[in-house]
């Protein structure tokens, strides 16, 4: 692998890779965690063997890719350039795929996606309704990139934004563009990235850090892992551009220990980038030095909180610190540290490469660009959906998500995980927008959306979230440790049919103090599940407490009096 010392080197390499790929068919197979659980690794191996057997090795390339988004239908196999998309492929289907589709160009009907509404079989991937309404600027490239190939990323134009930033722009130029684009943090904070970068840049101190928060502790969210696994270089490129703008010399990728595949892929990506001279000293001959270290950590929910994460990188338990002095000024080892989420970083090369106007052309007035939503729960099309900001929740659930299984009625959509909020059916016309959802009491968080139907009990679900938060609390401050615990005790009583008069008021009283007095965001937003469900589903609470009955039958009431 030659060291790239200029933009010209990079362009030349790109040309070489592209010309090598000319005339070859490509078979992309989704081979992430979801896919592997359903046999995608065996599909890949079978394809490689069969292609060799049928003498097509020089004409076809098999790519082991990350998640394309339609997790429900994995393993998915797409054949390019025709874009023929086969879903739920099994190893036994492989010989036919090779002999019929690859060798003769014939489509196998039974493997095509079938639209449940029309019954029609759809051949082209982009015409499948799930994908049609999406705008996959970040996640879309996963289809074309083998997880372990930096060349695939470069062939698509990867790292050209980095070359532009380092060699044609000053750090201030880059900073200005990010500020003008109004890119907001996609990890849960929604804070304008440009402003954060500026604070870090202006903070006193020579040594600065840039961090990728790939922790993804929010239950129900899995987009960060999909981006990192499927397209690690997009995040890396964004990180290096950001470090250049901020003046950081050292970067960290903070990753959970329980995704061995992702750890492996990221490590390989870092090694490859270094070999090409895209990381390390004098990147692309620009004079800019930057090193990245992968920090593998256990990962509990609080580790995702920025100050806790930094304490963890320093080698201690992830205990949050008060944020009166921002981490942009005093973070790891008291040095200016800029922390952003995976999805946020992945947007950076797109903004620099395609321009601010392109980015601001997508989305709403206050929320620009796209957002990846992880649709899960009682929904037909579980998966990752990348939509422009401004799409309504109704479109997400019904047009893209395919509605509720078994034609059940939608009860609520839970947005943003434990720190988010619930929205009943009546609010489904709200848009995916930072401000709009915040005002409705359901902040977007990392973008997880759990769909709940008539068989789910809201009181029980709120209790589950509280249990989760009590479990994940670090225990340092009293309001969170003791307050959340006492709230959980009350909720347990309610769900067992031992609710007392005044419980709702008591819950609200404790909630107010926990929200106001907790040290970190975990405690401050911990009462959200309770306050949100009380607001929208008070009647369910009342049924549990006053009538000792669970309207959905989910809660196992100890007393059987009043059932009905």
């Amino acid at each position: 692998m030659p060291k790239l010392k200029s933009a010209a080197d990079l362009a030349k390499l790109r040309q070489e890779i592209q010309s090598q790929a000319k005339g070859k068919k490509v078979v992309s197979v989704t081979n992430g965690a979801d896919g592997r659980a359903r046999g995608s690794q065996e599909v890949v191996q079978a394809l490689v063997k069969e292609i060799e057997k049928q003498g097509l090795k020089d004409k076809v390339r098999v790519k082991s890719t990350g998640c394309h988004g339609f997790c429900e239908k994995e393993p998915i196999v797409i054949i390019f350039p025709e874009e023929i998309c086969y879903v739920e492929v099994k190893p036994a289907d492989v010989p036919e795929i090779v002999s019929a589709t690859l060798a003769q160009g014939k489509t196998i009907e039974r493997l095509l996606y079938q639209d449940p509404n029309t019954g029609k079989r759809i051949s082209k991937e982009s015409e499948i309704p799930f994908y049609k309404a999406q705008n996959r600027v970040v996640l879309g490239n996963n289809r074309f990139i083998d997880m372990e190939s930096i060349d695939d990323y470069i062939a698509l134009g990867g790292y050209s934004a980095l070359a532009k930033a380092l060699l044609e722009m000053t750090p201030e130029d880059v900073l200005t563009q990010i500020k003008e684009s109004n890119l907001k943090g996609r990890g849960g904070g929604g804070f304008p990235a440009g402003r954060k970068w500026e604070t870090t840049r202006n903070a006193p101190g020579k040594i600065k850090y840039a961090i990728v928060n790939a922790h993804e502790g929010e239950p129900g969210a899995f987009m960060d892992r999909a981006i990192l696994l499927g397209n690690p270089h997009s995040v890396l490129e964004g990180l290096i551009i950001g470090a250049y703008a901020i003046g950081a010399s050292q970067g960290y990728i903070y990753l959970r220990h329980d995704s061995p595949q992702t750890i492996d892929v990221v490590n390989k990506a870092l090694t490859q980038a270094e070999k090409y001279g895209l990381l390390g000293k004098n990147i692309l001959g620009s004079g800019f030095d930057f090193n990245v270290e992968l920090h593998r950590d256990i990962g509990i929910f609080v580790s995702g909180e920025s100050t806790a994460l930094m304490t963890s990188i320093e080698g201690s338990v992830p205990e949050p610190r008060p944020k009166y002095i921002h981490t942009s000024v005093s973070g790891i080892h008291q040095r200016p540290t800029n922390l952003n989420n995976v999805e946020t970083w992945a947007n950076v090369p797109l903004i620099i490469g395609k321009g601010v106007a392109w980015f601001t052309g997508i989305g709403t007035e206050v929320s620009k660009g796209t957002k990846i939503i992880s649709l899960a729960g009682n929904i037909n099309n579980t998966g990752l959906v990348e939509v422009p900001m401004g799409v309504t929740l109704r479109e997400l659930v019904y047009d893209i998500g395919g509605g509720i299984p078994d034609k059940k009625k939608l009860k609520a959509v839970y947005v943003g995980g434990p720190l988010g909020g619930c929205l009943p059916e009546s609010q489904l016309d709200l848009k995916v927008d930072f401000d709009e959802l915040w005002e409705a009491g359901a902040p977007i968080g990392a973008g997880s959306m759990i769909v709940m139907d008539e068989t789910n009990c809201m009181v029980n679900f709120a209790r589950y979230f509280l249990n989760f938060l009590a479990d994940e609390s670090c225990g340092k401050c009293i309001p969170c440790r003791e307050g959340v615990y006492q709230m959980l005790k009350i909720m347990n009583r309610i769900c067992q049919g031992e609710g007392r008069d005044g419980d709702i008021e008591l819950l609200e009283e404790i909630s107010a103090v926990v929200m106001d007095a907790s040290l970190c965001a975990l405690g401050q937003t911990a009462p959200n599940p309770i306050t949100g469900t009380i607001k929208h589903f008070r009647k369910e609470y009342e049924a549990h407490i006053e009538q000792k009955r669970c309207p959905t039958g989910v809660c196992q009431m100890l007393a059987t009096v009043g059932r009905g």
Partner: protein
Amino acid sequence: MAKKKTKSTFIGIKATPEQAALLAKLQEQLKSGTKTEVLLKGLELLAQLSPDETTAALETLSADMASGSQPATSLELARLEAEAQQYRNVLQQTKNKTEGVMRQVIKQISQTDKILAHYGSDSSELVQMIIDIQHENHWLPKEALVWLSQKLDVPLNQVYQIATFYKAFSLVPKGKHSVSVCMGSACQVRGAPALLDRVTEVLKIAPGETSPDMRFSLDTENCPGCCALAPLMVVDGIYYCNPSAKEIKQIMAACK
């Protein structure tokens, strides 16, 4: 070598050549104690015998000597031999046990040293080192934690705070196969509590426990990010979507 006069150092008793040879043999076997100590021990034992027992023992010995079945050793030495044999056995057992424990500790420490070297003994990588130790042993032996604390110059309480902070770490040996059920929100909504019930039924242990035969450890976890497979059960890193009780039994049976 000049021939030394066989001098008996014990007061009053002069050993016959056969007795001296036997004593030497005993001494060699015991690998410790001078002739004096060995004889003293014998006398001690003799003193414990009551006059009747002595008489009885002497009679037995005379009978043995008369029948020619026993070699002509004196009474004290016969007892001595038996006692020495017993001591030797106990000593050997203790040595084996101590050696075993020592070997275990040394093995643990050298494994920890390897991990330390891998991270360049950087104390900010403490958590990563503990992750590796847990990964290798399926638990955190005390020796490893104490050694980490000493080599990295990190206070022991900090090491223990990390080791007890996370559910993924265990201070007691865990089962050979790890089973976990996801209790994340997407799985909750699709029936994770029911799945957990099925798993606990089959395994007969509660989350956080290890089966008595040390084959399985059961835990809950919060969202490994495979929400399309909800409700999820993970066994040794392999994901299963909504297994029935029958399927769970089959999977567990396949884990040897």
